[in-house]
């Protein structure tokens, strides 16, 4: 057997480097891929060999996925899982459609087929032409114009702009997102960097809003119209909170601890409260994350007052919670937990505390039900028929990240736990449709 065949056999047995584009209804499934040792989720398409389109991917994300596909190195393949079939097959000529509750099996099968030669690498989709070719004038190609084209062709060009250090030459405008791994899913922005600082942050439209979908399976959304068992609501809340913590941990480079949190989210129930508390104590210890996240992503408490942004507000000391007005929760002796930190570290600790509290409430809830009065305390804050905490938090984002270092800006964004799907589904015009 040749060296090449041996290498291919070994490569086929390696974890599948996967770049995920998660649409509607695939947020959790995409995150759960971290738990599978046969899959490794990569941050940049260049490091991937399989592109996974999970859930219903809206049009702007599909466009971005096409560009991501074209920068993936050969051999590469595309897997679609629970997508609206036609939209994907129209754009990706060869796509493997995955069935079943998890896309992992299909990813592994496609990866094997790619490496053993049973399946060929997908050809590029876009034409490989430079939209703004360099038109140098001098004998060494210097001077002239061009090379400021789009993505993936062309690169950002530094421009002149006043700066606090007196140099006017180092402003670098970079389009970031919607598939940037350091951002919440779908967030995209035009960012002007000055070194490591975010000088300007212009939020781009929410790609999920192009093709919003109702989120009827979400227990918190069901609780808007009808009472839902508190046990169900609180277990769902604990899971969402743990998943948010995992996203923060992942961004801070603690992949293994993030996996532990995701696994705990998957099996969370009233019996796991002690395990969640233990993990919370470990993760929020000073040496682990607390020192690094302290004073990162501070928001004026006055700006949060009355906004109904759940853990973010409560981590700033504002005891705002829809649940305090609910008779069923009052019966259970619920009081809103708060922190005084008002930074990313406090929000991480707050989410762990609330996850523990939620699991304890779920254990005591018996058959009690809550909801049905048009406003629910979701895992991110007050949810109504036409308003979501994500939409309200997005308004604060440009001010939050402007003037911050890039690492702090991404950590601050992760600490808000934005879900752009929720913002799209709960916006006024979508909610106007009768459910």
């Amino acid at each position: 057997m040749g060296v090449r065949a041996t290498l291919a056999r070994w490569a086929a047995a390696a974890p599948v480097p996967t770049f995920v584009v998660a649409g509607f209804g695939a947020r959790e499934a995409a995150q759960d891929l971290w738990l599978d040792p046969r899959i490794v989720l990569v941050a940049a398409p260049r490091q991937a060999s399989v592109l996974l389109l999970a859930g219903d991917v809206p049009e702007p994300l599909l466009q971005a996925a096409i560009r991501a596909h074209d920068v993936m190195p050969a051999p590469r393949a595309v897997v679609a899982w629970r997508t609206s079939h036609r939209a994907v097959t129209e754009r990706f000529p060869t796509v493997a459609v995955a069935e079943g509750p998890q896309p992992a099996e299909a990813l592994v099968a496609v990866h094997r087929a790619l490496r053993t030669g049973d399946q060929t690498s997908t050809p590029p989709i876009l034409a490989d032409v430079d939209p703004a070719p360099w038109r140098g004038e001098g004998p060494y190609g210097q001077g002239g114009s061009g090379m400021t084209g789009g993505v993936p062709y062309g690169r950002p060009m530094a421009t002149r702009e006043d700066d606090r250090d007196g140099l006017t030459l180092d402003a670098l405008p970079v389009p970031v997102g919607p598939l940037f791994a350091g951002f919440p899913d779908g967030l995209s922005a035009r960012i002007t960097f000055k070194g490591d600082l975010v000088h300007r942050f212009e939020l781009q439209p929410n790609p999920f809003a192009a093709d919003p979908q109702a989120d009827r399976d979400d227990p918190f959304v069901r609780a808007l119209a009808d009472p839902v068992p508190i046990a169900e609501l609180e277990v769902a809340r604990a899971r969402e909170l743990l998943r948010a913590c995992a996203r923060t941990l992942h961004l801070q480079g603690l992949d293994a601890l993030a996996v532990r949190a995701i696994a705990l989210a998957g099996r969370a129930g009233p019996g796991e409260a002690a395990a969640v508390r233990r993990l919370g104590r470990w993760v929020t210890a000073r040496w682990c994350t607390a020192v690094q996240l302290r004073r990162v992503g501070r928001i004026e408490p006055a700006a949060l007052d009355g906004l109904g942004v759940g853990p973010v507000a409560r981590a700033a000391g504002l005891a705002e919670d829809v649940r305090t007005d609910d008779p069923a929760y009052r019966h259970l002796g619920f009081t809103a937990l708060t922190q005084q930190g008002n930074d990313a570290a406090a929000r991480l600790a707050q989410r762990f505390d609330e996850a523990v509290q939620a699991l304890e409430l779920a254990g005591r809830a018996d058959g009690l039900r809550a909801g049905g009065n048009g406003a629910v305390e979701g895992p991110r804050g007050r949810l109504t028929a036409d308003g979501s905490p994500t939409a309200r938090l997005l308004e604060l984002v440009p001010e939050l990240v402007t003037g911050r270092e890039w690492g702090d800006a991404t950590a601050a964004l992760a600490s808000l736990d934005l879900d752009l799907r929720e913002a799209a589904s709960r916006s006024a015009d979508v909610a106007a449709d009768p459910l």
Partner: protein
Amino acid sequence: MSASWVVDVLFWLLAAGSLVTGWLVFRTDSMVRAAFWLLASFVGVGAMVIMLGAEFIGIVLILMMAGEMLIMAIIMVMFMMNPAGLNPMFMVHQHRASIVAGTTAFLGLAIVAVLTSFPDRPVASGVDATEQLGFELLGGSMLAFQTAGVALLSTMIGAVVLANRQGRYGSADEGSIEPDLDPEPSAEDPGSGTVSDAAGGRS
């Protein structure tokens, strides 16, 4: 002996390499590449110094150049509107003046190199040059080196003070503007109130 043959080849390779990379500094079209070619040239020179038996000086030269060339590259890119210094640019300017300066410098150095009678005192193989250098630095030449050291230290402190955000003329965020040479006080400036103003305020 075969060892001396290897040493000769190595020396000439390094010498030629230093010259070629030095020449490439001016032939490349990018500031960062120019800085790295210069670094390569210096590493070649450092290696030759090591071959001359001055191990410590040669390695320290290489060590220092790594940081210096990186800082130089970053500062050059910072001052030029050229993303990452990768877009092609013309690295040679003022041809006539630079030809004259280059030729003059070369002739001067060549004359010195040809006319000087270099000492020819081979060192015994057992001598540790590093140790001797240490005794020289903290012995006979101590005054000269310590003076240079203190001078460099004060330069560094001065540079830090000048680069400080709270500079000599106020915060850099507010422009850190040098006060006018004209001693006439401006009307709005409350800090430069005259004696009569102060007296008027008191009465």
